């Protein structure tokens, strides 16, 4: 059978297994089989970032990636970011800066910000705009999002020093 397979992968640190169909996307797998709703399909075309998932540490569009290929991979979603009740500094920063209204786009922005700060620990406004170019916020919280990224960067620098 090559239109169905078992995939074994690590999901937010836990060994996981699922049966996937040939045409199933990563977002469908996470939503339907693992009840993880943080990565969601909006544009479905790779343009908006609402479906962002980290696969082997790289950000990908979950709406364009076939679930088939997560076999053997390390998959991280927004749900795996907090440590118990302790939010990640990027999550805290988005709340403190009020960087959302409806929140639909937020999980994608937060995961992309994690990646951005791992590459540029102290990004300029220009670098932030450039890196987040493919994340759309229909509530247009962009000024607060940029503020949140700076705030998160500052928080992470403090943590790194501690």
């Amino acid at each position, binding site marked *: 059978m*090559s*239109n169905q*397979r078992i995939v074994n992968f690590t999901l937010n640190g836990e060994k996981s297994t699922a049966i996937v*169909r*040939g*045409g*199933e*996307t990563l977002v469908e797998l996470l939503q339907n089989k693992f009840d993880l709703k943080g990565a969601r399909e909006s544009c*479905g*075309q*790779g*343009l908006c*970032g609402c479906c*962002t998932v980290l696969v082997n540490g*790289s*950000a*990908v*569009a979950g*709406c*364009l*990636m*076939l679930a*088939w*290929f997560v076999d053997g991979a390390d998959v991280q979603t927004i749900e795996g970011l907090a440590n118990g009740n302790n939010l990640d500094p990027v999550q805290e920063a988005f709340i403190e800066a009020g960087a959302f209204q409806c929140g639909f786009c937020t999980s994608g922005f937060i995961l*992309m910000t994690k*990646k951005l700060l791992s590459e540029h620990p102290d990004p300029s406004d220009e670098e932030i705009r*450039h*890196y987040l*170019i*493919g*994340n759309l916020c229909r509530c247009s919280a962009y000024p607060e999002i940029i503020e949140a990224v700076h705030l998160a960067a500052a928080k992470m620098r403090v943590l790194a020093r501690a």
Partner: protein
Amino acid sequence: MIGLDIHEPQSLEEAFALLGDDESTARPMGGGTALMLMMKARLFKPSALVSLAKADPRFHGIHLSSDGKAFTIGAMTTFAALEHHDAIAKHLPVITQTMVTLANPRVRNVATIGGNLAHADPHLDLPPVWLSLDSSIRTIGPAGERIVPLADFFAGYYETNLLPGELIMQVHVPVSPGWRRRYVKITTRSAHDWPAVGIALGLQMQAELCTDVRIVLSAATDRPLRLEAAESILRGQKLTPGRIADAAQATGDIHIESDSRGSADYKAHLLKVHLARALQDLSE
């Protein structure tokens, strides 16, 4: 997309067998980004996708030849791998410069240069740049390998001259020391949109004289187009403002197609203005 078969062949022979003959609707897959968009839009429904990830090591890697004269880049190389490659940044900075204008980091992490070429959408940004660098493609198919100059590769909208069952294996890119290069991407909606017009430029200067030149236009005709009339006005000449204006004017005969990012007239105007500007800039 129920009923889609997916294969990850471990050898080329296996891949060719799975891809089948000309009638087959099995498709090779690089990063799958263009395939997924087309399947989701129901533009077509392949019976199977055949991932090239494990078929042969020659589909992978970025190598500079030992004499430093050319790069060989595997078709499965992702945009992000090119974007962050030190030797590419050093010897082909125009590629690094172009990369950051394409799509967004998530797409760049996944989309491959082989898929980008085979897709043959005339609105893509890399094909004109490869063409302006005099690149060629190494293909492999059931009947063996071929080297195809990129100038002979595209056949029209979403059409290439690949033979049935043939795959893009590598892209060969000569290193051209002393050339000044630029890719001008003109977008009309958002900065990282597909271009309304793309212009890939290469200029070889000796003192005041332009000794050689490449100008490739994209997003305006059914395939990336070398602008030979404009080139011949510049080659061997001093790039005075008048001569640059003549070269820009010589693009007037091109039959440009309108699309959702600009009418033919508007694109023709963008081409004239931006070509002249970029030539002026590069020649200084």
